[in-house]
């Protein structure tokens, strides 16, 4: 079976810093893989290169068997629809509701006036409500994002990724801005979704004990390379 996310030979250098050196890894559907490593070891760069928010210098990226690395701008935009992302800072639109933030996933298919006014078709609204229910936030549907707690905001971000119906979820330090209880809740949620929906989850963390508790596999990065853990699957 082709892995949901397959990366090989991914490399990136900034001026005189080698941020990624020949990184190869696979994540299967339903699997949670944690990435640990000291600050500056290239974890965020790895995530940004997979989504090509930062252009890698070399390497292959496949999502569901489809290559992402050679795509031109418009094909890349479509391919990004297959990758859900969760950021450390949540990155919600502050002044829009939880539901509108979940709707971010469907922007490409919406007419401009609906995007501007935040008026969404009923069928999509129901789908977004469903995604919010999956992260246990149905009661906060109409609440403005900047009034939600950190843990709730991160769950909205996860619901946004669910709404995309992508098979891959990339989470760069999803719990670094959260207190321990909220952190466990978010990680447990991601794990549950991986198992129930066959989502491939790649997630950076700072605490080894959280990785041990919630991940199926842990990779260690140092100076842009995966130094251990690649083979203990």
């Amino acid at each position, binding site marked *: 079976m082709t892995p949901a996310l397959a990366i090989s030979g991914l490399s990136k250098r900034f001026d005189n810093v080698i941020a990624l050196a020949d990184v190869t890894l696979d994540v299967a559907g339903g699997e949670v893989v944690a990435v640990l490593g000291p600050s500056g070891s290239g974890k965020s760069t790895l995530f940004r290169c997979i989504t090509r928010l930062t252009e890698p210098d070399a390497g292959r990226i496949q999502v569901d068997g489809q290559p992402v690395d050679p795509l031109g701008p418009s094909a890349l935009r479509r391919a990004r629809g297959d990758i859900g992302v969760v950021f450390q800072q949540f990155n919600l639109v502050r002044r829009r509701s939880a539901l509108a933030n979940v709707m971010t996933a469907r*922007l490409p298919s919406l007419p401009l006036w609906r995007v501007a006014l935040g008026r969404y078709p009923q069928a999509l609204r129901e789908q977004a409500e469903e995604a919010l229910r999956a992260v246990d936030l149905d009661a906060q549907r109409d609440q403005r994002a900047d009034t939600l707690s950190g843990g709730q905001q991160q769950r909205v971000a996860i619901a946004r990724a669910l709404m995309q119906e992508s098979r891959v979820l990339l989470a760069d330090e999803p719990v670094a801005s959260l207190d321990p209880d909220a952190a466990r809740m978010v990680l447990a949620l991601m794990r549950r979704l991986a198992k129930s929906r066959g989502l491939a989850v790649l997630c950076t963390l700072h605490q080894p004990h959280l990785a041990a508790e919630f991940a199926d596999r842990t990779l260690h990065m140092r100076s842009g390379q995966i130094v251990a853990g690649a083979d203990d699957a």
Partner: protein
Amino acid sequence: MDIVKNAVGPAPRQGEQDDLASAVVSRTAFVPLLGLGVAFYALCVHVADVDFIRLVEGLPRLAGWIARSWPPDLSEIDVLARRGLETVAMATVGVSFGAIIAAPLCLLAARNIAVSPLLALPARWLLNALRGIDSFVFALIFVAAVGLGPFAGVLGVALHTAGSIAKLWAETIETTEPGPVEAARMSGAGRLRVFLHAQLPDALPQLSSILLYMWEFNVRASTVLGVVGAGGIGQELKNSVDLLQFDRVLTILLVILAMVTAIDQLSAWLRRRLS
């Protein structure tokens, strides 16, 4: 963040104490710079033909006019009020047209949207050109093109204000958070949708406040447009000064003051409500 900054910032040169060095450089440059500034100012005073003797000689004439202006001539207050309204209308319609021109310009010019990277530079040139030419100058040209009256003023205000609004709007949009934009881009949406969804809601209060401010500013600025024949109360002002009817001039000044104060208050109140 800090890591990135350290990586891209210039490396400190060896054996050199940057702070001390720059302090010495700026101190040695200080005296010549000050000299240059004083010389330039002196030149300006000379070129501007400053002559306080003439002011003193003119004072009695001014005093006479002020004395003759009382009591204000209220016989034509209805005409003047109508002309005042014309000025407000000119500014309001002019600013609304300006905003319509400014909207696409600012989308092209804002660096963190750049709907079309190819058009970003021409858009920035255009808005700087519009902003650089005063509405008074535009109005002068439009009076020649479309004839006397407030419509020439509307067009003048519209063009100049379009440049100002576009620049201020673009700057506001450039300060919106990059995080939500990246998240929205990850959905695969194009720049315009990303802007409407992720940037517009956060920028909207500030964008509206800028629009109100430009409106208020243009009501004040439009009082002079009548001088070039572009309608409004300024035209009455010029006529009355030319005919030395100072009681009527006083009435006009009072009408302008009342009008500007009312608009300022209204605009300030609305802007307070936005923030």
